[in-house]
């Protein structure tokens, strides 16, 4: 598979849309559509994306703007230019993967995340409490649960394949890391130790850890 022409990343100030400047408008349009449809309901309505386009054509910029507004989103017209430059885009081209985000914040929650609740953060998330069935936790970075995880957890939700999920008891309905999904077996065996899930050789693996 070729590298992504379009990458959506979570940063401290919102979402960033990185576009490969060698791509055509049709390719970009298809990519963005796919990205948005992969995660329906993921981006809150009215989300503004900061466009990272060092040398994109004006018409392409406009096209992206129109496409996003069709989906109820928008382009942030006042990007905080400095550190996100064309270099970033080149970095992606080289490795085929978004480079480590500069944001190292963490969202910390000291409570039970209950069914029907959705917790989303572009950073990593630390939860001191249980994540109950029917709850969703979605992080741009890693997820650490000091409690039992029975809900749906998605780490590296914007493509960070290095993200991990850790829980005192890992018995979720579904684990997602970046764009990989692992479903729990239909009859869940009770785990008696802390576990870590991460991507290894293109697969989500789960291993016991000490803590």
């Amino acid at each position, binding site marked *: 598979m070729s590298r992504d022409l379009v990458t959506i990343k979570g940063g401290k100030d919102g979402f960033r849309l990185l576009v490969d400047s060698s791509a055509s408008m049709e390719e970009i349009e298809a990519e963005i559509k796919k990205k948005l449809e992969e995660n329906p309901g993921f981006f809150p309505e009215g989300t503004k994306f900061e466009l990272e386009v060092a040398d994109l054509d004006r018409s392409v910029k406009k096209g992206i703007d129109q496409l996003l507004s069709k989906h109820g989103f928008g382009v942030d017209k006042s990007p905080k230019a400095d550190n996100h430059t064309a270099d970033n885009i080149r970095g992606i081209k080289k490795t085929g993967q978004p480079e480590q985000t500069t944001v190292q914040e963490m969202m910390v929650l000291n409570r039970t995340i209950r*069914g*029907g609740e959705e917790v989303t953060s572009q950073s990593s998330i630390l939860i001191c409490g249980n994540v109950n069935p*029917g709850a969703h936790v979605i992080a741009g970075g890693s997820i650490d649960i000091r409690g039992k995880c029975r809900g749906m957890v998605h780490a590296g939700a914007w493509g960070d394949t290095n993200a991990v999920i850790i829980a005192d008891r890992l018995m979720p309905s579904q684990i997602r890391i970046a764009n990989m999904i692992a479903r729990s077996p239909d009859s869940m065996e009770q785990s008696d130790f802390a576990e870590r899930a991460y991507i290894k050789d293109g697969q989500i693996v789960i291993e016991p850890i000490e803590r």
Partner: protein
Amino acid sequence: MSEVIVVTSGKGGVGKSTTTANLGVGLAMRGQKVVLIDTDTGLRNLDLLLGLENRIMYDLVDVIEGRVEIRKALVRHKKFENLQLLPTSQVKDKSAVNPADLMALCDELRKEYDYVIIDCPAGIEQGFQTAIAGADTAIVVTMPEVSAVRDADKIIGELGRSEKDNIKLIINRIRPAMVDSGEMMDMDDINDILAIKCIGQVPDDIKVVTSANRGEPVVGDNDSQAGKAYANIVGRIMGEDIPFMEFEKEGFFAKLKKAFGM
């Protein structure tokens, strides 16, 4: 110090009205002044459970809309004159009552009664928001069933978002034999997920149904496991420290005893 308690569940049919009726009668038996408010408009049944259907003159909507004074709409219990019911309407529009109305009503009743207990409709829509508005304490009723526990969990989250932090749990319709055989969720599992203080474990008991049909809640009936369980909950609400009881199993000997009327 009076307390306004809302009895809620998310899922319907888990025993909210049964719980409200039993707590009302149980607290009245202990000499407390109690008023029960039925807010499950359209599905009126608290009056039936208390055997008061034929005494209803006015209802909650009449009071809220100012047609009658509260005093006139209250229906006194036949046996316990310190227990009153404010029934709801079966026909009027349920949006007639809003959270502010009910809050004002609760504050009025608080002056005169030790306990105001509100029977809440199922779901998390407006009726729920109205019912919880004036409450100090929420009692969440659930059953040892995956879907009922899920709904209870959601309701607890919802209560938290409405800044109701004093939440207690009652697990109703427990079948000990099924719990033992692993066919029913056990109490530890439920408490582990819901993580709120449990004040009652009530077994599934046919006497709950037969006594409801007579309009006499089972609470205090010492021949009934559920009756004892409700009496224990009443004690816990009044601040007593009562251990949870062990349920009798419908085993061979229990059945044999029953067959001989022992």
